[in-house]
């Protein structure tokens, strides 16, 4: 009798890693990769996010060097330098990094992960097979004038992009980065991007992340942020479009008086699935975290929000606030939201709140009774709902850029 051999998704990924042993990688990640299972809904952290379809595709490394026109992905009016990654490959020729004072960018730096515990298969995969390695150093005591805009573009069918980016924000530095994820065409793609940021003492670092890919895209972001004492980190995760998006955001504090602000909007429609898993680890006293995520879900879209906040025993005088609110715009949309606060210190201020509902029918009628049509009444309400998150985007050009995309999506009023 012949034995049937089933090639699993994991096997395919392992084979891909093997084929490309010369690509940069982190030694520890390669070792643990085979011991980890593909994420599945039996795992608590993946309960509502299916990864099965990712496994059915035959992913490959970029085979050709395309030259996409990136001008349409630039943010109008924004004074920024841009670093372009196409199909997972850093493209110096498309990037514009001249005269970037106070920032140095390296593409060869190795990563040491001896101490790192890989949480899941994709995280290890992203480190075991790096398609582009970027190390950004921000000089201490410098306020960076230009924004740095990292643009990830995919152009090829079934391409696996695994950029691995590390940013070291030097002591008392101040910088503002933008990261956008876009695609050209309707091809399938899987982008599994790793980002690690060290915010040094008294440094301030802001990241506006704009995700607007197409329905055939899978986007995995693994963000690990460490904020030292007196440091400040702000991230706005703006998920405008994308078939499957999972954002893992881990923030930990290393010293007192540090602050983290994490805000996000997600607006899935059709059969899109958007998942935000956040973790804020208060390990030391006197730190603040403010978290606000809002979702508008339409059609058959599904969303997940899981917000963990740990307040460790010695993290006294912690202020940790978390809020997640969702509006389901259709009867078939679904949202799974779960705040998880674990507080082991007794002198802290912590709060969390989560709501999921529909557009307020009374408010809709009120607007219509004043002459507003159904569509504009709805848009006025959806705009109002997400405006407080959009207001967190401090730069006018970036906010206007996002707003213009939302107007195109018919979610905001012009």
């Amino acid at each position, binding site marked *: 009798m012949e034995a049937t051999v089933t090639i699993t998704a994991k096997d395919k990924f392992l084979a891909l890693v093997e084929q490309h042993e010369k690509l940069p990688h982190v030694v520890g990640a390669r070792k643990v990769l085979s011991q980890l299972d593909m994420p599945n809904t039996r795992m608590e952290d993946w309960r509502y996010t299916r990864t099965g379809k990712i496994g059915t595709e035959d992913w490959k490394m970029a085979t050709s060097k395309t030259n996409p026109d990136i001008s349409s992905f630039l943010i109008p009016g924004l004074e920024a330098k841009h670093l372009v990654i196409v199909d997972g490959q850093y493209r110096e020729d498309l990037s514009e990094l001249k005269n970037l004072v106070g920032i140095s960018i390296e593409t060869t730096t190795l990563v040491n992960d001896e101490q790192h515990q890989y949480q899941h298969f994709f995280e290890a995969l992203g480190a075991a097979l790096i398609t582009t390695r970027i190390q950004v150093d921000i000089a201490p005591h410098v306020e960076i004038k230009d924004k740095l805009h990292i643009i990830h573009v995919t152009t090829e069918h079934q391409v696996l992009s695994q950029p691995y980016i590390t940013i070291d924000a030097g002591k008392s530095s101040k910088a503002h980065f933008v990261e956008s994820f876009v695609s050209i065409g309707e091809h399938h793609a899987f982008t599994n991007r790793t980002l690690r940021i060290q915010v040094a003492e008294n440094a301030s670092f802001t990241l506006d992340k704009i995700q607007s890919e197409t329905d055939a895209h899978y986007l995995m972001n693994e963000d690990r942020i460490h904020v030292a004492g007196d440091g400040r980190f702000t991230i706005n995760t703006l998920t405008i479009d994308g078939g499957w998006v999972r954002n893992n955001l881990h923030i930990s504090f290393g010293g007192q008086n540090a602050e983290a602000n994490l805000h996000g909007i997600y607006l899935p429609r059709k059969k899109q699935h958007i998942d935000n898993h956040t973790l804020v680890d208060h390990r030391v006293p006197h730190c603040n975290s403010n978290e606000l995520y809002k979702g508008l879900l339409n059609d058959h879209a599904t969303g997940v929000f899981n917000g963990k906040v740990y307040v460790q025993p010695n993290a006294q005088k912690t202020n940790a606030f978390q809020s997640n609110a969702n509006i389901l715009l259709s009867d078939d949309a679904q949202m799974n939201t779960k705040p998880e606060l674990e507080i082991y210190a007794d002198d802290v201020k912590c709060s969390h709140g989560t709501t999921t509902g529909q557009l*307020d029918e*009374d*408010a809709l*009628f*009120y*607007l*219509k*009774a*004043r*002459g*507003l*049509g*159904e569509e*504009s*009444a709805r848009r*006025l*309400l959806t*705009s*109002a*709902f997400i*405006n*407080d998150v959009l207001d967190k985007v401090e730069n006018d050009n970036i906010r206007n850029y996002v707003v213009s995309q939302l107007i195109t999506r018919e979610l905001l*009023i012009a």
Partner: protein
Amino acid sequence: MLTIKNLEASIEGKQILKGLNLEIKPGEVHAIMGPNGSGKSTLASVLAGREDYEVTGGSVTFNDQDLLEMPAEERAREGLFLAFQYPVEIPGVSNMNFLKAAVGEIRKHKGLEPLSAKDFLKLVKEKSALVELDGQLANRAVNEGFSGGEKKRNEIFQMAMLEPSLAILDETDSGLDIDALRIVSEGVNALRSPERSFVVITHYQRLLDYIVPDFVHVLYKGKIVKSGTKELALELEERGYDWIKEETAQAGA
């Protein structure tokens, strides 16, 4: 202007209006009174186009058009205005943006050019003064954190901005102190004109001292059972509704 014939309406299968008749001519002010649960607010909601109510019979003609065929926004654009009993708070939507959108829609419907920003602000200033509404309130979110009196004044302010031909005031006096009642009433009176009609729904004669009606109707068990002039309101204030209920019972028997 408005002709209601044998109007029947129900909510969640329960019939509230049971054959209501009313005729309103341009410039007239009609007060509708009646005990709790008689159908006063249902009438206001049905006329404004709230979809929770099902019209099961009768007709409503507004300026020679079938009102019941129109969605709520169409009714508003055609000149019908409902001052809500409970104005809705809409966090995040500024009063100004909301009014700009509403005025814009109504002007568009009338075939008028949109107002310039300057003219719009001028109009806001002029009309908000009518109800002594603080300019700050105009900039805040719609009704959010407004006191009961401020909400009602905001309703009349909106009415002044939108210049309807028929305004329905649904218990606009509820929750108002004497000063607010005076301000709201003066605002309404300033808007009275030979072309503009009002339906004033109220529990209390008090409001009718300020807004003097041409006709007073008593709504009871989903029908208008008695109509008269302003003296009827005074009589109701004095005698209550029991005699009306008895009269109706006898007429039915």
